[in-house]
């Protein structure tokens, strides 16, 4: 058995490196990592390094695409015109892709950035048209409603210990909510009044179905008797 000159411990057969300090067997103790903290402690974990590379790769790819589009626009039209649309799209795509890679453990942060980038994209498209019009009164409210409903359904599903019919129920409730918001905002944009017609019929059909699915999921499951569920 080999003995590590630094730690003084015996290393298993066939091991060339001390598992405690990283000193190579046969090397003088000074040749291993120095000080209290070993070399590995300061290294980036592998998965984080991979995510950073992915974010950088996405950024460079989008930058190349953006420059190419810009050059083609300048060469063909002699000025920046239609390329503003793909540029805005590329920028938005980067804002949608990169935050989860950069801050994977902060879902609130990257979801907020992604949500805001959609609003910014709609504003951007509207601005390219010449003035702010439809985006503020129609695009942003509808996008906000869609994001809110999707986030709510996703959160409820994520919180569920047991997933099944309840996920479908949450999705149906979200769809009903979105329909109400969609019709309301369109009516507001067209006539200045938040009026509901077809969406309320849709919701009144969908919500009871969702309620039934939730009842089936949580109550009629085989083992969920009241005595167990409400045992004090």
């Amino acid at each position, binding site marked *: *058995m080999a003995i590590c000159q*630094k*730690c*003084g*411990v*015996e*290393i*298993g057969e066939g091991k060339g*490196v*001390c*598992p*405690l*300090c*990283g000193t190579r067997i046969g090397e003088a103790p000074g040749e291993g990592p120095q*000080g*209290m*903290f*070993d070399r*590995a*402690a300061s*290294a980036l*974990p*592998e*998965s*984080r390094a991979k995510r950073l590379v992915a974010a950088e790769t996405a950024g460079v790819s989008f930058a190349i695409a953006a420059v190419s589009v810009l050059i083609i626009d300048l060469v063909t039209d002699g000025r920046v015109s239609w390329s503003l649309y793909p540029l805005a799209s590329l920028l938005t795509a980067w804002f949608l892709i990169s935050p989860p890679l950069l801050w994977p453990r902060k879902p609130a942060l990257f979801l907020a950035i992604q949500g805001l980038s959609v609003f910014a994209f709609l504003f951007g498209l509207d601005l390219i048209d010449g003035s702010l019009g439809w985006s503020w009164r129609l695009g942003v409210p509808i996008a906000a409603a869609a994001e809110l409903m999707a986030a709510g359904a996703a959160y409820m599903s994520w919180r569920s*210990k*047991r997933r099944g019919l309840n996920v479908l129920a949450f999705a149906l409730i979200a769809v009903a909510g979105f329909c109400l918001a969609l019709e309301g905002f369109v009516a507001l944009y067209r006539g200045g009044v938040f009026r509901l017609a077809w969406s309320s019929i849709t919701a009144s059909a969908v919500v009871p179905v969702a309620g039934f699915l939730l009842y089936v999921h949580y109550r009629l499951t*085989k*083992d*969920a*008797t009241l*005595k*167990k*569920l*409400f*045992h*004090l």
Partner: protein
Amino acid sequence: MKQGHEKHNERRARTRFHDETGAYYLLDNAAIIMPAVSDRRNTFLFRMSATLDHPVVLSALVAALKRTATRFPYFMVRLKRGFFWYFLLPMDREPVPEYDDGPPNLGFSLKRRNEFLFRVRVSGRRIACEFTHILSDGTGCFVFLKTLLRQYFRELGVESTPGPDDLDIDAEPDPSEYEDAYHRFYKPGVPTPGPVPQAFHLDSPLMPPDRYRVTCGIMPVEALLAQAKSRGVSLTEFLVAVYLDALVAIRTSLARTGRKLRPVVCMEVPVNMRKFYPTRTLRNFSLFALPSVDTRLGTWTFDELVEHVHHQLRIEAGERRMATQIARNAGGSRMLAVRLMPLVVKDFFAHLLFERLGEGMMSGMLSNLGPVVMPPELAGRIERFDFVGAPSKIIKTGASMLTWNGNAYISFHSMAVSRDVERLFFSRLASLGVPVRVECSMEA
């Protein structure tokens, strides 16, 4: 004649109930907090394994596990969520061994549906049992592993004489095996323990969530005992002092960089309560002592630390001190306001309690299972035993140990990138003349 509180304790200690759909179990008092605070890293899974003198015969192990499962129906359960508490439902299938190819104690979620709360893993000559603390503590898991091993060898035609602590696999399970002993031995009127300061924690970043490093030091137990005896302390006290010394050295090194660090360095030392109270329970029944040093009191030499830990553990690990912890834990869960609180609210407070009264108070942990005893017919057929503790995001590194066949097996389990605790611990033992052989699950 039983007193009023004893009758009440017996009622509260009962964990098995029936309704029209069959039996169900309640979680013991130590386990009730765990489902709420478990996640991908904090799996609450710990592991005990035996390495045999021959490659495991899978067909014999499958048959042995099937037979052993019938002896431990209270372990063959899954976790369910109620309105006020979590509860355990019997599984409707048998457990089967899994291939032991991933890191220990990871890749297991308490939130998985319809899954056992333990697993038996097999690879080469090794049989490993990984249990969540929801089911049991080290004692319960080890009784299960011993029973499984005895049955495995019986399948291979090797009969063994059961020892005094071994279960008879042919007997019916006794209700006392799954009683909640915390509630059974609760004493009304006993004060709760005083506040404990938040402790220093290792500064190292965590490895990715799918990685868990086990560094096992193997050494002659005689050499360790000689060191402990020369200082007039027990083996556990001596090793806790070595661990504490390593943590203090790391803290001192960090403090030199100007970092603001908590001054108290504290160890968690689990105490098996079965040595104080007459119970056969195989559910959780352990509490912990917290020997600590305050670095504001100056530099501690190693011998001072050993003496300090010795006296602290003599006081802290006594029955009367442990009774105060039972008073706090069992007493708290008996309060009507707590019982009537919906589980969603309990889960929220469980996080706070776990961080404040759980791992926030400790910088490291050392769990000593003690000497392993097997029937003489089997002792020569088992090369070694290993004990690997549950992962922790907060204390990051901990140690578990047992002794077998004249050797001590001290396994450090870590989620930290840094290996400083392990290095300082084993280097200290080596510098004292203890011949230490180290194995690690991950290359440096």
